[in-house]
């Protein structure tokens, strides 16, 4: 019987961390930003069906970068956790903090158990409050640590560079359109500093909107509403030419459900060319 090689715990952990980080870095980054009426999730995602962002509970949203099957597994675990907790106690007893703790424990146990492959995921759990002060954003890296974030956060391969860009430009009380535009600018900068265009069809956008009258605040932004928000200019006025509006109208035809039934969007009305 051969003697196994000795590997120091430090080295083992460093190897595992590097393995996880490399896996996460292969995925595209995503950002989560606070705006005046809530929290917006923005990421580049060519898939219409495999989501990076989803609803966990009434006020709690989930975002993940990394390996899809692993974060999907955690997402469903989180939905089960939240629904069971809400069913046993009350809907108000489901909190982002509780969920983030459970995720942190889960990721941490997996990371430090040598029997299991570390998860190649980085998560964000966000809860929208009644006012911006009540918003909570937690970032959960692959090793199960937990970081309480404010304003803006980026996860994924290029996260550090994007975070720095966002930190310098993010302001409290931004409009949804401004926050969305900032997020897209941050995501479209490559590591070498060059900018590329991310078309609206490749963007996945969702919000936790505290002004929604329903109990469930999570909402995806798709189709014409997304184009309209992207076209809006920095000062909140309508886009200068009719071109952007034509674009918005054409998407409306293909996705009629996208813009309908939206409430509480401060920017949705500003772009009507008939006015």
């Amino acid at each position, binding site marked *: 019987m051969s003697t196994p090689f000795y590997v120091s715990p430090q080295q083992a952990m460093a190897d595992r961390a590097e393995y996880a980080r490399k896996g996460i870095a292969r995925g595209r980054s995503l950002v989560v930003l606070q705006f005046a009426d809530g929290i917006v999730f923005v990421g580049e995602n060519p898939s219409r069906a495999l989501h990076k962002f989803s609803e966990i509970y009434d006020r709690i949203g989930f975002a993940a970068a990394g390996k899809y099957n692993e974060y999907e597994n955690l997402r469903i675990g989180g939905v089960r*956790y939240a629904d069971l907790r809400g*069913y046993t106690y009350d809907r108000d007893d489901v909190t982002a903090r509780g969920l983030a703790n459970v995720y942190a424990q889960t990721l941490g146990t997996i990371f430090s158990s040598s029997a299991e492959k570390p998860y190649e995921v980085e998560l964000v759990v966000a809860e929208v409050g009644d006012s911006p002060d009540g918003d909570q954003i937690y970032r959960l890296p692959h090793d199960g640590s937990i970081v309480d974030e404010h304003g803006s956060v980026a996860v994924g391969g290029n996260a550090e560079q994007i975070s720095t860009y966002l930190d310098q430009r993010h302001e409290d009380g931004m409009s949804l359109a401004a926050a969305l535009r900032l997020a897209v600018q941050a995501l479209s900068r490559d590591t070498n500093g060059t900018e590329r265009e991310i078309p609206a069809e490749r963007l996945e956008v969702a919000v936790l909107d505290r002004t929604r009258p329903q109990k469930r605040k999570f909402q995806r932004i798709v189709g014409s509403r997304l184009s309209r928000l992207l076209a809006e200019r920095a000062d909140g006025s309508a886009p200068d030419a009719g071109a952007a509006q034509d674009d918005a109208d054409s998407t409306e035809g293909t996705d009629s459900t996208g813009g309908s039934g939206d409430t509480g969007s401060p920017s949705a009305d500003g772009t009507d060319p008939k006015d």
Partner: protein
Amino acid sequence: MEANSRSTGRLPAAFLTPGSSSFVDFLSDHQPGLLPGGRNLPPIQGVIEAPHGTTIIAVTFPGGVVLAGDRRATMGNLIAQRDMEKVFPADEYSAVGIAGSAGPAVEMVKLFQLELEHFEKVEGTRLSLEGKANRLSTMIRSNLGMAMQGLAVVPLFAGYDVDREKGRIFSYDVTGGRSEERGYAATGSGSLFARGSMKKLYREDLTEQQATTLVVQALYDAADDDSATGGPDVARRIYPIVTVITDDGFRRLTEAESSEIARSILERRMEQPDGPRAALL
């Protein structure tokens, strides 16, 4: 709560095991004791005295469906509650009204709402209306043991079918038997009278406003002849719960709206106690 009381604090294996999108299935694997049907009941002689909900009615109209209920809960010959809520949104496009034992019924509604929401979150799409109706059927069937001991739950399920673009009504019996109703339906002790009333008033081309008036008329008639059904209580300002489901989703009439309908009906009944007359031929 299991997830927290375990020493490690991590999600138990059951949470991370790939499985069905049903919350009820998850509960029956993980914590069957939390399910209404998962409890072992001791043998009980006779009927358990517990509050009962009474009349629930539903009417379709072009473009949607109206589901309404009175507010009275009775226990034997007592009025247990005057302002009970028996009509609940199930999700954005459907609602459920309950008659029968109030305790298990409200619990079942809560579980049903969660079941639909859970599926929606896990799968990323909504169940079809047919799928929701079948799911409710399964849940009633699992309650049969309690129904045999007198704790029967008889819901009425109504919703807007987004695919077929119309309102639909499903009624159930205690064994979970499901049947789709055409036009109008009622359940609960006052349902016989409500159904008679609706039979005379219902037309296929009702507007939303006429449909909401019709259900309040029918509830008035049910309360008129059935002691377990409560009429509009003007003194306490307790009016029937009326909900409308269209392609805009679920909407519950505000107290001002339902009181206005109830008051105008009451006024007419002062002159004509039996309500509007249908033609003889």
